[in-house]
């Protein structure tokens, strides 16, 4: 096998030691790779064990990268594996670090890190083999600078966002209730009190009552816990709904919600509910459970409104009695059982109020926890395909590299479908130098808005530096002089047109990430007005390859609610397993087209809710390639016989 020398001499970097990573490390070791470096910041969790086969129960809590190394060395002690229990975005992993590798293999689970690694690979000129799986679907792609498209050449669908009024006032799906329970109620009760929170945003002018409601969440001195808990319950599920109902306009075309008060659901019960002290004493806060306390066993069961209310009170009580110290700095974590119980119960009570079907804790956890649905076999198949592509790259045989899709149902007889890689997108701001255009009100937007809404969140920069002409406006880093830090902090609060080097319409700024070695030029275009619903950022970036989000339609007409929402938090991020899922959304449309044999279908899809701008062309290419099959085979055989 001629590939052996290429394998033996290679030094590879794996990013991610999770579902795909475990399989990949095993297959690399079996295939004869001798020098493997692996970065993963995560520690092992129980729910990893069914598929991340290098890990055991006894490893829970330890570094994935380190445990994976030890596990593989047990059957392959001769090889060198270097683990890094760290974030790939750490500054240690700079371009020079990446340059030492022959190829980089990604087994990541989030868009942010993928984009970051893509940029470092481009800057270091190291080929990247990228992968992703969701359930039975998966894909492997190869990115070689100048030869194939980079990871960011094609639109990456945006995480779904919802107008804040959908969440605060007019939920129509269970996911809206989950977001409310998790990002608003949970955050309000247990999180940082100084964070902006739209929990009390109302549909109409309610200035008088909102003053009052500010205090609702504060426990009064000497207030009995039962009193406090009931007051919160009545406020969020009762009074808040009542006052939302007072805005007739909102409910013209909607079903009215039903206010729910404790007395209607639980009568006197909560007082008799004993005290939480009878729960087993434990120092481990992750063991606390309202379900156990109430004798509820099956997380698959859908609780009644009454049961949800009891879980709500029990969870609240456990938080206040057993986890008092954490209150004020908790953020939702899907592995925090008590938090999941609380969010499930609160979401269900709200759902009951709005006539939305209730869900089990198991389902609620999936929605709230940003859980990627995973099957071990898909990860292992994808890992095998990554190694096959990596070997082609190492043999400098980039012409035979393929993107491969792993499908759930055969399409043209294929379960594993190879497709020729696409050429780089000339308009890609990451791998080519096409300038971006930013429409912004230069007299109103502050530099901070541009940094937060554009540079960090849209361009995915980690350590940005912003210059205008010869003037430095903003910079992030550890080794900055104090006066510079103060200067930048002051700049952040200034309106663009009043900065020391004024940014006005027609000027161009340069945004740079020193770690990613990515430079973007942004042409500024002044615009006076922005639509709050459609352009919630108050600015619009063009030439940037993220597809618009889909979900906003059903509430587009509820502009009457807008007055109360603040623009800074006018959308709420909804946790779905977006990165891996969404890539596959594109894939599925492409494949469906092929399977059905009618290319027309695709245009239906692209005209529908999710606009996929360039997808038509791509799907066509996939279809053509698939039809091509005889030619492809002959080609490969010729190559092989040489």
């Amino acid at each position, binding site marked *: 096998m001629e590939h052996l020398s290429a394998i033996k001499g290679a030094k590879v970097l794996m990013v991610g030691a999770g579902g795909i990573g475990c399989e990949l490390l095993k297959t690399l070791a079996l*295939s004869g790779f001798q020098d493997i470096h692996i970065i993963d910041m995560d520690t092992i969790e*129980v729910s990893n*064990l069914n598929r991340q086969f290098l890990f055991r129960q006894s490893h829970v809590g330890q570094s994935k990268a380190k445990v994976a190394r030890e596990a593989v060395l047990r059957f392959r002690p001769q090889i060198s594996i270097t683990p890094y229990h760290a974030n790939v975005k750490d500054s240690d992993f700079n371009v020079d670090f990446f340059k030492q590798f022959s190829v980089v293999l990604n087994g990541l689970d989030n868009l942010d890190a993928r984009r970051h690694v893509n940029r470092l690979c481009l800057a270091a000129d190291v080929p990247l083999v990228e992968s992703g799986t969701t359930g039975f679907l998966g894909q492997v792609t190869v990115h070689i600078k100048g030869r194939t498209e980079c990871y960011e050449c094609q639109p990456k669908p945006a995480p779904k966002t919802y107008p804040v009024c959908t969440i605060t006032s007019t939920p129509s799906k269970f996911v809206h209730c989950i977001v409310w329970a998790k990002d608003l109620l949970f955050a309000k009760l247990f999180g940082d009190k100084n964070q902006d929170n739209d929990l009390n945003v109302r549909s109409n002018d309610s200035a008088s009552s909102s003053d009052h409601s500010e205090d609702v969440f504060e426990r009064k001195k000497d207030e009995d816990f039962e009193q406090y808990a009931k007051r919160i319950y009545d406020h969020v599920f009762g009074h808040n709904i009542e006052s939302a109902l007072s805005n007739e306009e909102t409910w013209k075309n909607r079903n009215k919600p039903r206010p729910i008060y404790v007395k209607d659901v639980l009568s006197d019960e909560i007082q008799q509910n004993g005290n939480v002290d009878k729960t087993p004493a434990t120092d481990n806060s992750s063991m606390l459970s309202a379900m156990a306390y109430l004798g509820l066993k099956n997380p*698959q069961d859908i609780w009644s409104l009454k049961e949800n209310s009891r879980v709500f009170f029990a969870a609240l009580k456990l938080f206040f009695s057993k986890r008092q110290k954490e209150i004020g700095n908790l953020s939702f974590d899907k592995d925090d059982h008590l938090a999941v119980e609380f969010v499930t119960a609160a979401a269900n009570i709200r759902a009951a109020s709005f006539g939305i079907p209730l869900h089990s804790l*198991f389902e609620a956890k999936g929605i709230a926890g940003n*859980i990627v649905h995973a099957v*071990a076999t898909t990860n292992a198949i994808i890992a095998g395909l990554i190694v096959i592509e990596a070997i082609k790259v190492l043999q400098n045989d980039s012409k035979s590299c393929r993107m491969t899709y792993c499908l759930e149902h*055969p399409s043209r*007889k294929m379960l594993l479908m190879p497709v020729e890689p696409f050429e780089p997108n000339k308009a890609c701001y990451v791998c080519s130098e096409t300038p971006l255009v930013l429409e912004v009100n230069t007299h109103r937007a502050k530099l901070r808005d541009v940094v937060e809404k554009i540079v960090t969140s849209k361009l995915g920069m980690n350590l940005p530096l912003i210059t205008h002409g010869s003037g430095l406006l903003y910079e992030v880093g550890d080794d900055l002089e104090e006066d510079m830090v103060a200067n930048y902090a002051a700049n952040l609060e200034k309106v663009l047109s009043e900065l020391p080097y004024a940014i006005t319409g027609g000027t161009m700024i340069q945004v740079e990430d020193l770690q990613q070695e990515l430079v973007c030029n942004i042409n500024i275009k002044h615009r006076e007005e922005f639509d709050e619903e459609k352009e919630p950022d108050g600015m619009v970036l063009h030439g940037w390859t993220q597809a618009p989000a889909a979900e906003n339609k059903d509430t587009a007409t509820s502009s009457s609610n807008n007055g109360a929402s603040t623009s800074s938090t006018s959308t709420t991020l909804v946790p779905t397993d977006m990165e891996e899922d969404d890539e596959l959304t594109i894939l599925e449309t492409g494949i469906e087209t092929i399977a059905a044999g009618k290319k027309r279908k695709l245009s239906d899809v692209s005209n529908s809710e999710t606009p996929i701008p360039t997808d038509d062309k791509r799907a066509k290419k996939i279809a053509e390639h698939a039809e091509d099959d005889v030619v492809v085979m002959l080609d490969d*055989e010729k190559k092989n016989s040489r």
Partner: protein
Amino acid sequence: MNGEELTEQETALYDRQIRVWGVDAQRRLSKSHVFVSGLKGTAVEFCKNIVLAGVGSLVLNDDNPATGEALAANFLIPFDENMGGEGSLAELCCDSLKDFNPMVHVSVEKGDLSTFGVDFFEKFDVVVISCCSLAAKKSVNEKCRKLSKRVAFYTVDCRDSCGEIFVDLQNYSYAKKKVDETVQCQLQYPSFEEAIAIPWRSLPRRVAKLYFAMRVVERFEDVEKRRPGETSIADLPNVMKLRNELCLAHSLNESQIPDSLLERLVVSTKEFPPVSAVLGESSARLFEVIKAISGKGDPLKNFFFFDAVDGKGVIEDISTS
């Protein structure tokens, strides 16, 4: 719910996969009993996965010693300088697999596969054999078919950078969800012997070339009384001669079985680990799909081929119907 619920421990461990295929499927999976014979890299991948996924029990069969080559492709067996004489492949794999998932019962059955009678296979729902002779494939398949209960039969083989999976589900009926109704579907599977006896001319056009090539090599090993994979470059002329004879008998153009493909199968008979991973996992997946997900698409019928050279993973229906 049948009164049998998954335990809390099971729900926590299998959380992610239950999200894909549901609780009922997980319960069915945990009641199935599987037999695997021939523990090279591909079969080991299969075993790893069904143990992780939570089958009821797994019985392993492979009396071969854990020697250098067998170890090279096996991530289940810890490396030991003084290896040798310390138990069979099956025994060593069994220890590791038990450790993977304490909820699955893993055990070893010693003995030669050909000596197991019909009754032996009655204990299982699924029988998987890997790296076996043509005779063994036919005979085990027939034994499974003689039983009154349906025992799913799989063969999994990997040579160099390509390989094949065969599935016999006998008479398989399943519920399929159409837009808003559920229809009962029936699939009739041929046995391995029946499938390979189908005249090549009558197969669908553009059947994977690998299908023919595998038949030629399998036949060669059978005629020459070789063990599976016991071929070398010296055999190539005779293998090509056999190819020509078979093509003539089946009136198939010889170009359908290219020299280059035969050469790969004959010369490098070792399993190539990434391909083993793809094949072994694909078989585990097909197994999961059939066991677990009814009503969502059709089960595989009845061959799967993968070749790393063109990168395609193809399903072929090779049956008379």
